[in-house]
């Protein structure tokens, strides 16, 4: 059965992939290797996991504004997430998703972080703000 979560459209386009869910905020600068898409931040819940082609579900961004550009670099390298879902979007990840053509939705009802499980197949429509667990 398909389960639907409705949220706020942030960055347009559709993306689909396996979910990678964390309760930790993400700073792309210094935390994600743009060449491989691997999370390299020590002690991060996703340390050692790869964000590439995943639907990346995390509460919000943190840290340097340069993270926006790192998301763009991931996209150019083919290592970007397929889509991003945040509990509460902040400007760094929002700008990063938009300039990188990564679909993004936030503030879903019900809450994405507690509803979506790592490994679920998820489809994100960033234009309409709709998330589906397939």
């Amino acid at each position: 059965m398909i389960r639907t979560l409705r949220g706020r459209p942030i960055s347009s386009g559709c993306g689909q992939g396996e979910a990678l869910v964390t309760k930790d905020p993400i700073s792309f600068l210094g935390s994600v290797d743009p060449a491989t898409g691997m999370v390299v931040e020590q002690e991060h819940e996703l340390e050692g996991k790869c964000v590439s082609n995943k639907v990346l579900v995390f509460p919000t961004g943190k840290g340097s504004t340069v993270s926006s550009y790192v998301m763009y670099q991931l996209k150019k390298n083919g290592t970007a997430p397929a889509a991003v879902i945040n509990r509460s979007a902040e400007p760094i990840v929002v700008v990063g998703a938009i300039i990188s053509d990564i679909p993004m939705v936030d503030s879903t009802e019900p809450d994405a972080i507690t509803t979506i499980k790592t490994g679920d197949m998820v489809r994100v429509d960033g234009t309409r703000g709709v998330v589906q667990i397939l």
Partner: protein
Amino acid sequence: MHLTREEEAILNGESGPTLQKAMEIITALGDIYKADSLVPIKSAQIAGVSYKTIGDAGLEWISDLEGKVVVPSILNPAGMDLERWREMGIDEEFAARQTRIIEAYRQLGVRCECTCTPYYIDPALASYGDHLAWSESSAVSYANSVIGARTNREGGPSALAAALIGKTANYGYHLDEKRVPVITVHVDCHVSGADFGALGYLIGAQVGADVPMFRLRSRPNDLELKALGAAMAASGAVALYHVEGVTPESDSYQAPAETITIERSQIDEVFEKNCPEEVDLIALGCPHYSAEELEAAANLLEGVTMNKEVWICTSRQVRDKNPDAVHRIEASGARVFVDTCMVVSPATERFGCVLTDSGKALKYIPGMCGVGAGLASTRDCLKGGDID
């Protein structure tokens, strides 16, 4: 958020992909911060220039953009003096990439004057009541507080997006209600010169992103206000402050009841705690020095030979308009570098400890350069750090 038919068309891609992306950035931020509409801007000041801070990721993004800015737009400091980078100790590879960043901005029609004090080089960029999209935190503070213009602390991409569209989302410091002071800072002593950097360093950490109203015994000049705002924007996220009887909007507000009182001993303590035993670089000009500050430094260096490395950072325009002061400064062995500063240049990283007259540089140098930092008055800095 209400968009005009024309804005809607840009968002739908009718003016091409670069403007579509720019409009998406502006409207997405507008939605997050609950803006009601877009507002035309007078100018943009774009951060994200130093190769040290934006790296290959930023270089790629800026290089891929197409189009031209539609309002006067100017850059933040780069990672090196664009001409004298070898003297700073910058390597060839860094210089090549930094040059590519500047050229990419030039292609977009951005004025490639790299400074955190755009208000010194073109007063037309910001006047009282103008809406702006500026990003460098001290320039934002000066524009809002001293000039009475209106800008949020934009990120590099959002300032560039606003420059391409000529508008930004109408929220935050663009609105009257966000400009009201919420806390009074009562300074119970005489303060002057570098004291303002120390004061800002203390207050920024206490008030965070709030709007403070200062009640001072002495009347600060614009240079002291520049230092105060820069330090508060670094140790906190203050984008706007008022000084009773001094700054242009201060008469519109009552001093808020909640009050912080600062005494002389607290300011002295900032200097005492940040008084390093040994320094190997003296770096002044954060924010970039004005003509008056260059002249004052030249007078302090008259007949002196500096035996330490001394950098004085300013904008290219201020340097070029003040050849006599620059000549006198450089006769002492000190150097006047332009387009850059000690915070955003990797050249600072080879030193052990920097002495500065700036509360902002004091806050940023340890984290951004991995180097120790001390604070002293301009005079004491140029005495070579002999500040007993």
